[in-house]
């Protein structure tokens, strides 16, 4: 029944047909298909209707997608998501590069400790991180205490309710992301730097390269793969940030911190636009897929 030439390569005992593998995958596949793939299909289906979640929906074609891309408030939300990518992905990677550039030339004491501490925000529930930062930013919280202290020393008074401020709420939320993701980038780059052959550094030094040139010529090219991984994870985190927004600002003040991840929830359960909410969710999934695929292509494309 089954082709014999594959027998030696598959780890299948004699007497069991090749298709027995399907029996092993089946339970996982059923749960996966029923509770992840099927909801995705259903989400797409819902997104083609105008539906408030209660009465009968009406066919809407692609109009929910048109609205996702043209509605000023939703365009604003996607715009905020792009700004948050800068805070979650670009700034942490830049800072981590500076830090790793600093340590790549010297032996640092207590590196294991730094690693553990820097990576810690990655394992803490985002809700706990958000609750903590809400206090850090609160009118009498640590940030404002420090700023008032500076004010007493003669500087202007910069203290304010950061998360309720129309200008500063989005950067304030973004900086929480920066704080969370620096450790991830840092740990990745530290591991990558250790894999770069020492001889390359020695050669650079013999050529008289200073730290900056050494970084550009040796460290940066050696970390391309790690950079791709860091960007993939942090960009995805920037777009899947429902928890943080829900706990800290709920999209406010006004619409200053609205993001697609929050709008999915908001449109479905607060404004009764279920079809639109699903369209936003599908668009978000597509965006994450395209960006992460793009990043890994970029990393492989240039002479891997």
């Amino acid at each position, binding site marked *: 029944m089954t082709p014999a030439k594959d027998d030696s390569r598959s*780890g299948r*005992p004699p007497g*069991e047909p*090749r298709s*027995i*593998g*399907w*029996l*092993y*995958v089946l*339970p996982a596949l059923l*749960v*996966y298909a*029923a*509770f*992840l793939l099927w*909801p*995705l299909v*259903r*989400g797409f289906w*819902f997104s083609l209707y105008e539906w408030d979640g209660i009465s009968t929906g009406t066919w809407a074609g692609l109009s929910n997608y048109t609205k996702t891309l043209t509605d000023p408030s939703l365009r604003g939300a996607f715009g905020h998501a792009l700004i948050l990518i800068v805070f979650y992905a670009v700034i942490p990677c830049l*800072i981590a590069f*500076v*830090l790793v550039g*600093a340590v790549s030339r*010297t032996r*640092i004491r207590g590196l294991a400790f*730094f*690693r553990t*501490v820097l*990576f*810690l925000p*990655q394992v803490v*529930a985002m*809700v*706990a991180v958000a*609750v*903590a*930062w809400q*206090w850090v930013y*609160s009118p009498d*919280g640590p940030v404002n205490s420090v700023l008032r202290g500076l004010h007493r020393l003669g500087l202007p008074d910069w203290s304010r309710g950061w998360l309720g401020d129309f200008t500063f709420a989005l950067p304030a939320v973004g900086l929480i992301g920066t*704080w969370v993701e620096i450790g*991830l980038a840092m*740990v990745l780059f530290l*591991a990558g730097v250790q894999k770069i052959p020492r001889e390359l550094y020695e050669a650079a030094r013999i050529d008289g390269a*200073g*730290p900056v*040139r050494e970084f550009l010529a040796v460290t940066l090219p050696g970390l391309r793969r790690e950079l791709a*991984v860091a960007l993939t994870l942090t960009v995805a985190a920037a777009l899947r940030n*429902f*928890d943080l927004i*829900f*706990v800290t600002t709920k999209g406010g003040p006004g619409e200053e911190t609205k993001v697609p991840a929050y709008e*999915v*929830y908001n449109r*479905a359960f607060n404004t009764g636009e*279920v079809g639109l909410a699903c369209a936003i*969710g599908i668009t*978000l999934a597509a965006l994450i897929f395209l960006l992460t695929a793009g990043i890994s292509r970029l990393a492989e494309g240039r002479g891997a």
Partner: protein
Amino acid sequence: MTRLVMTGRQELVLNHAILVVFAVIAVFPLVAVVAQAFQLPGFDLSTFREAWREGHFATYMRNSLIVTAATVAAATVLSIMAGYALGVLAPRGSGVLFLLFLAGLTIPTEAVVIPLYFDLRSLNLDNTYAGVILPQIAQSVAFGTFWMRAYFRACPRSLIEAARMDGASSWTTLWRVLVPMGGPAILTMVLLTSMWTWNEFLLPLVILNSDEGLRTAPLGLSFFQGAHQTDYAQLMAGALIIAAPIVAVYVFLQRRFIAGMLSGAIKE
């Protein structure tokens, strides 16, 4: 071109200074939270007792434990079997199946939570443990299959051959030979799926929308925050309570956490 050349000593001091500054920035919020919750520099556990009682954290932690244990146990068994099938048995179509599971790694909860809510509600599974467990098994299985397949592919071929020569069935080979050897790989998978399940917020928020007695720990914290807007000492205590179980495990097994989380994004 300007060239920045420093003596070794200056450089060493500067590098440590940069590291220390960033370590302080990284640690400062953590220390501030701990100081606030324990009322440092004194040491007072009364805030914790109060938060624990008023926030009903005993119930929420128990719920999280039930949901996490059930999700991880089921996902682990299913992932081991699926990973074995795709990595070793390789039935026809396993390449496509693998891509299908891989795609699951990029599906955000945001894209499926609304349809899940309406469909689970019509099955009367909203406000039940099953309603939050089943979708999380599905998410964990996507990662778990990817992870276990990589482990099984790395297993020495000769070992599987030897088991086959001894007349072991594929089932015996899996559970008696490969799984006992795969302790480290399985442990990493269990740690990561436990962490993701424990920390999940959006899914329980939507599915457990009316039954307070079923709330998981992160959900409980967000409602606790709604009720105690500015009682920051209690809020920080609550945040520490729900973070504690995962952080405790992380402190002991941080290498596995870090390696696992970073490899999840690396395609082979």
